[in-house]
């Protein structure tokens, strides 16, 4: 075959092959997350792990990345906290948990629970940039006990208190 001819064609006539791949996963949450989600589901409590240097971390974990020390102690933190970062999302986005588009606009931010040194991403009950801001106080709003399944979604969202 003529090498030149293999490269010469009208770009509008380029062929594209469509495929859709659906993969199913089942992730073991592990010992630390299981304890956290069990307390969240059954008692509405937020648990964190602490090391001997005093670092308190959510999500709970076996080792502190900062000190290198084991995180052997469990402490309760929250359910109130402070916004360490925040945004209102307008761009249409496929929710990986459902495969469908999440309604926009929605609020989203980094929440540092009272008593913890790290933050977690979660949803905010805000749809306007005027309602949010770094440093604002927030409160975890839990799903009713009967609706909780043992996941981070057992916290419905965070309510802005300020």
């Amino acid at each position: 075959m003529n090498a030149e001819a293999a490269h010469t064609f009208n770009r509008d006539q380029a062929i594209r092959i469509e495929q859709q791949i659906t993969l199913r996963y089942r992730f073991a949450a592990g010992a630390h997350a299981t304890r956290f989600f069990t307390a969240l589901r059954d008692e509405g409590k937020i648990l964190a792990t602490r090391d001997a240097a005093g670092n308190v971390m959510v999500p709970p974990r076996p080792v502190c990345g900062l000190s290198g020390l084991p995180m052997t102690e469990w402490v309760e933190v929250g359910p109130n906290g402070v916004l360490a970062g925040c945004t209102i999302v307008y761009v249409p986005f496929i929710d990986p948990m459902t495969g469908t588009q999440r309604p926009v606009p929605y609020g989203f931010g980094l929440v540092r629970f009272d008593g913890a040194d790290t933050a977690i991403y979660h949803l905010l009950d805000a749809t306007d940039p005027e309602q949010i801001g770094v440093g604002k106080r927030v409160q975890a709003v839990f799903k009713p006990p009967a609706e909780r399944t043992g996941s981070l979604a057992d916290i419905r969202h965070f309510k802005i208190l300020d």
Partner: protein
Amino acid sequence: MSAPVRAAIVATGQTDHGRRFDTSMAEIAREAIDRCLESRGLHLDDIDAVVAGNMEMFEGIYLVDQLFVGALGALGKPLYKLNTGGTVGASTALACYHLVASGRHRRVLGVGFQKQSEGSTQAAITTVGDPIWERAVMAGAIGNFAAMASTYIADSGVTPEQAAKVAVKARRNACLNPHAHLKMPDITVEEVLASEMLAYPIHRLDMCPASDGACAIVMAADQEAGKLADRPAWVHAVATAHDQQYMGDSPKRLAVMRSLQAASRKAYALAGIEDPLRDFDVAEVYEPATYAELAMCENLQFCAMGQGGRLIDDGVTFLDGQLPVNPSGGVLSTNPVGATAMIRVAEAAMQVMGEAGAHQVPDVSRALATGYGGNAWTDVMILSAERPR
């Protein structure tokens, strides 16, 4: 341990980045490889080993090193595939350096490639998140950068106008770069601020595009480098650093970039950089969003912390400024993820070699390149026209 072999980048090659429906993944990788090798009259027989960088979830092909072994020119040779997220192109260049510096290989080909048009970018980026703790509430790269920008604004007081100036600089510089994807010669600050709000405070024109493209480099050992290029880009320092694992572990991650600080300080010490603003002639940094470039300039010590806005107001990082940042147009103009961080390295090398064409900065002696990605993972490479002592 014996001293590392001195190594230099002697050749680079890039595709015409953009929406490339006319090429397959293998073809786009090969386009960059051919341009790289042909620029120095090299042949695949001259290459001892190949390192390939690609972020597999974008196209959903998980063994590109096997499928594209022929296209990558690696048949019968050592071929290493890397995926380190956004940094992958820089990590690939660093791996090429380590393979040469170790004395194992004399001429190593590095190639980074990605076709973002073939998959779902934001969904792919969500798979970077921890399935237990992060995915349920993630909003892809855009929401992540928006939340990070809010922390940076709170700390530095940087304004939307100052961020928009970064977008203007990038898209105008891109007009001088024949490989760039987004070229907007007439872009204005007002146009950036009027563009669609994706996630507050990030407008569409504050964010990088999704591109198809590839980049290749040849890293050569001391005794080879001078024969292959008139003015090799010698590697004076490489460094890598990570932050903690979860997105929220470093709540000020854009204002205070711990991994960028750690990696750059280590590289500066290795290369004898005392005052980065004075000692570098050009920098190619991995800025996926406008606010990120300003924060990175602070964390790289181009200015004092909190002064990133002033730096762009003063024009310091413009093409004709004291320290041009991203004369290529940067990530804001071209982002084929698996290639993006290698493009930073290649562009820095082109500047040192005096081969950057219309976006060449005059008299470049020392250049900085960075790669950034994942949950704040940073690669740094310092290149110089002077052979290391």
